[in-house]
C-alpha cells in the first residue's frame, strides 16, 4: 500500500512525523501513530483541526464552508480531517506541541451529580468522575478543552466544553443549551436522573488558554460558548493571573440569557475582568447592550487594543469576529476559536 510521510510542524517549531496511507485522512493517520491532534467532529464540520499546507500534493474532501471558508482555503489552509496525502506532505499547525497528546484519549465513567435549569433553555450539568485505576478521582484537563459525553444507554454521544477547571474531586461542569430536536437534549430534559452513569471520553481539543505572556485577553462567547470561557477565566483567577481581560457574551433573545450569576461570580474573583452582555434581538425589558458580541468586539478593538482573542460560539459569529479582528489589525496568531454546531 502506498504510504506518504507527513511532517506537521507545531506552532513552537517541533516537527511531528508519521505515515499516512492512501485513503487515510491526516487526523486518522496521526491517531494510528498515537499522535492525537486537536480535532472534534472529524467530518469537516467544526473547523477545530485547521492547519496550513506548506508543500506536497494532496486532495481535500468537501467540508462545511463555516469550518473552512473559501478565503481560508485560498490561503492554503486545510482541515486535517479532510486532507489526504498524494505525496509526502508538509503542514504547519496552529497549536503548540504541548497540546498534542501521545496517549490514548481517556475513557471514564461519571455519575450525574446535578442538573439545574439556569434559564435561557440551558442547563448546568455536573458530573462526578468515578474512581479510575489510572486517573484516580482526578479531573485533569486544560481550560477550554471538551469531552465527549454518551448517554447511559450509549445511544447518543455529543461533545461539550468543560466550564470548570481541573480539580481533584472529579467534578466536570457543563452548560448545555437544550435543542428542540437534540437527542442528548432529549435525554437531559426527559430521562436524566441523578446517579446516572455516563461515559466520558476526553479531555480533548486544542482550544485552550495560551499561557505565556501578559497580553490582554478578550473572550467572545455566543450562547453556551460561554462554557470554555468560564473555564479559562476561572483558571486565571485560580492562578492569580494579572492579564487585563474582557468577556463579551451575547445571546439572540433576552429569553435566551443564562449564566449571569456565573459572570458576576467571575467578576468578584477576577477583579480586572470587564464584562459586557449583549442581546441581539432585544425586547423592551432588556436594559443592557443591544447587538452581537461581534459588535462589542469591534467597539473594543476600535480603541486600538490588540488582545489575544478567544472565540467560541456558532460558526457565523466566529467568522464575523475573526474578520473584525483581522480588519482591526490583530495578528492571526492571536486569534483562537472553536466553532460549535447545534446537534
Amino acid at each position, binding site marked *: 500500500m502506498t504510504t506518504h510521510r507527513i511532517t506537521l510542524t507545531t506552532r*513552537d*517549531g517541533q516537527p511531528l512525523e508519521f505515515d499516512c496511507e492512501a485513503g487515510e485522512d491526516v487526523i486518522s493517520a496521526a491517531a494510528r501513530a498515537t499522535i492525537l491532534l486537536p480535532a472534534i467532529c472529524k467530518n469537516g464540520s467544526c473547523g477545530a483541526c485547521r492547519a496550513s499546507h506548506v508543500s506536497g500534493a494532496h486532495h481535500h474532501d468537501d467540508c462545511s464552508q463555516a469550518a473552512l471558508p473559501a478565503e481560508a482555503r485560498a490561503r492554503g489552509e486545510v482541515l486535517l480531517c479532510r486532507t489526504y496525502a498524494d505525496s509526502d506532505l508538509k503542514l504547519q499547525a496552529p497549536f503548540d*506541541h*504541548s*497540546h*498534542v*497528546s*501521545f*496517549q490514548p484519549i481517556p475513557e471514564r465513567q461519571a455519575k450525574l451529580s446535578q442538573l439545574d435549569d439556569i434559564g435561557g433553555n440551558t442547563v448546568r450539568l455536573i458530573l462526578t468522575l468515578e474512581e*479510575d*485505576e*489510572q*486517573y*484516580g*478521582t*482526578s479531573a*485533569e*484537563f*486544560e481550560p477550554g478543552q471538551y469531552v465527549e459525553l454518551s448517554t447511559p444507554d450509549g445511544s447518543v454521544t455529543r461533545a461539550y466544553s468543560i466550564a470548570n477547571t*481541573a480539580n*481533584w*474531586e*472529579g467534578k466536570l461542569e457543563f452548560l448545555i443549551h437544550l435543542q428542540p430536536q437534540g437527542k442528548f437534549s432529549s435525554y437531559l430534559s426527559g430521562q436524566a436522573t441523578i446517579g446516572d452513569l455516563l461515559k466520558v471520553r476526553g479531555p480533548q481539543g486544542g482550544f485552550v*488558554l495560551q*499561557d*505565556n*505572556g*501578559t*497580553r490582554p485577553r478578550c473572550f467572545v462567547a455566543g450562547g453556551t460558548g460561554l462554557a470554555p470561557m468560564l473555564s479559562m477565566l476561572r483558571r486565571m483567577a*485560580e*492562578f*492569580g*493571573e*494579572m*492579564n487585563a481581560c474582557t468577556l463579551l457574551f451575547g445571546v439572540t433573545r433576552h429569553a435566551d440569557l443564562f449564566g449571569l450569576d456565573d459572570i458576576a461570580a467571575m467578576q468578584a474573583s477576577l477583579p480586572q475582568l470587564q464584562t459586557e452582555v449583549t442581546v441581539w434581538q432585544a425586547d423592551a425589558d432588556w436594559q443592557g447592550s443591544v447587538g452581537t458580541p461581534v459588535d462589542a468586539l469591534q467597539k473594543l478593538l476600535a480603541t486600538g487594543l490588540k488582545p489575544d482573542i478567544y472565540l467560541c460560539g456558532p460558526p457565523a459569529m466566529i467568522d464575523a469576529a475573526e474578520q473584525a479582528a483581522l480588519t482591526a489589525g490583530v495578528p492571526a496568531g492571536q486569534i483562537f476559536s472553536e466553532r460549535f454546531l447545534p446537534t
Partner: protein
Amino acid sequence: MFCYQCEQTNRSEAGAGCSAAKGACGKDAATSDLQDLLLHALKGVGQYAARLRALGAPDKEATDFVPHAVFTTLTNVNFSAARFVQMIQEAAALRDRLKTRYEEAAQKAGQTAEKLAGPAAFQPAADMDGMLKQAAAVGVLAGQDSAGEDAIGLRNLILYGLKGVCAYVYHAQAMGYESDEVFAGVEHALDFLATDPTDIGTLLNEALALGTVNFSTMQLLDAANTGSFGTPEPTSVRVTPIAGKAILVSGHEFKDLLNILELTKDSGIKVYTHGEMLPGLAYPKLKAYPHLAGNYGGAWQDQQKDFAAFPGPIVMTSNCLIEPAPSYRQRIFTLGPVGWPGVRHLDGKDYSAVVQAAKALPGFKEDAPEQRITIGFARDTVLGVADKVIEGVRSGAIRHFFLIGGCDGALPGRNYYTDFAEQTPADTVMLTLGCGKYRFNKGEYGDIGGIPRLLDLGQCSDAYSAIVIASELAKAFNCSVNELPLTLVISWFEQKAIAVFLTLLSLGIKNIRLGPTIAAFLTPNLVNVLVEQFGIQPINTPEADIAASLKKAA
C-alpha cells in the same frame, strides 16, 4: 533571543548559541529576552545595594529579592514570561527605593552621593512588548563590537557563575542561613558587571574572586543543610516504588521536602525524592520520616518519561524542569523560583493542593522489585574513616581517587561519564556529587577494605565536602591537593557548575578534566588561559583519561 549559558546550547557551524524562537532548554524567545532585561535591572539594584553596604547600611529587601530573582534565570528554572515582567517591575521599584536610601545614607555620612548611570538608571517599559524592545539592547552579547569577544566571554563567565552562587544563597536562605560576606560578594559582582568592564586581567580576577565567594556560599549552604537536618549518614535507600499513594519531590530544596514530609505524616502517602533531592534521604532529620519511601526515576533529562509514569503529584522545588507533557501537566506543581506557564505555582509554601492531588491520584498499585543504592558519604563520614583511607593509600590498596562531579544532560557525549565509571580500575575510589551520577550510580562497584568504591557526597553544592576531604587528605600526606592521587572529572551543564568551577580555580586546583564540551561563551583565547594557567583539560576518551590520570599519579 540569544542565550548560550548552558552546555546544551545550539552549536552549529555558524557559531554557538540559541537564537531561534525557542532555546534548546525550551525557553521561548520572549522569556529569554525578559531574563536578560531582569538581569540588567538587577545590576542596577546591585549598584545601589553595594554602595549602601559600603556605607554600613545593607538592605534586607535587596538581599531577599536578588538571589531569588537571579536564580529564576538559571537554566531550566523559570519559563514564565509573565513572571519576568512582574520581577522586572519589582526590581525597578526596589532599585528606586535603594536609590533614595543610598542618597540619604551618603548625606548622613557626609558624603556626596554618586550619580549612577547604566542599569542604575533603567526604567522598565509599561508592558511586555515595550520591555522586549528594551531587552534588545542589553543581551549577553551587548557591547561586543567595542569590548571584544574575550571581555564579553569573561563578563558572561562571571554572570553565569553569579547565577550559580545565587542559587546556593537562595537554598541557604530557605533554611534561615545568611552571610554578609556572601551578600557583599553578590552585590559587588552585579555592581562590577554594571560597569561593562573590558580589562581582561580585572575580569579574570573578578571571576576568581567570585569563585571565593562561592566557596563561602557552599560552606554556608553546608552549614544550613547539616544545621537543619543533621550530618548525612551512609544510608541504603530504595530506588523502586512501593504500593500506595505517592508524592514526588524534585529539585534541590530540602526545606520543601521537610515541609511536605511533615504535612503528610500519618496520612498513608509515601514521599519520594527525584533528581538532586536524592541526597536528602541521607540526612537524619529527613530520613526519620518513615514515609520518605525512597528515590524515584533517573536523570533529570528523563523526567518526561519518569513523571508521566508517576501516579501522583510532582513538586519542582528548583531546576531542572523541562516542558511538562500534557499527561502530567495538571499534576506538576512549581515552587519558589521555578515556573512554567500554565502549570500551577504554589505561593507561600502552601502545599495543601499537593496533598489533595496525592489523595485523588491512584498511587502505585503494587511494590516494584526492590532495588537499593547506598548514599550519604559527606565529609564527616569520609573523614571519620580517614585513617582507613590514608592507610589504604599508603598500602597501595587505593591507587587513585576520581571525583566525578557535576551535572547531567541529554547529549550522547555524556556516556563518557558512564564509561569512565565502569572502566575505573578496582583499586580506585570514585567520589560523586551533583546529578551527573545518575548515569552510573546504580552499578555494582564493590569496596576496598570495607570502603565502598563509589562514595556519593551529595548535591552539586557538596563540592564543598569534596574540597574539605581533599584538603584534609592533603594535610595528612603533607602535600598540596594538586599532588594527591586525585583526578577531578567535571561535567557541566548549567550555571551552578560554573560557580563550582570558579571555586576550584580560585583554590588553585589544577588539571581538571572538563566536559563534555567547553562552554560556548569561552573564546579560544580564554580557553588558552584556562589551559595555561590552570591546566584545564578537555575530556578525551575514558580509556585515555584514566590511563593518563594513573600514569601521572604513578
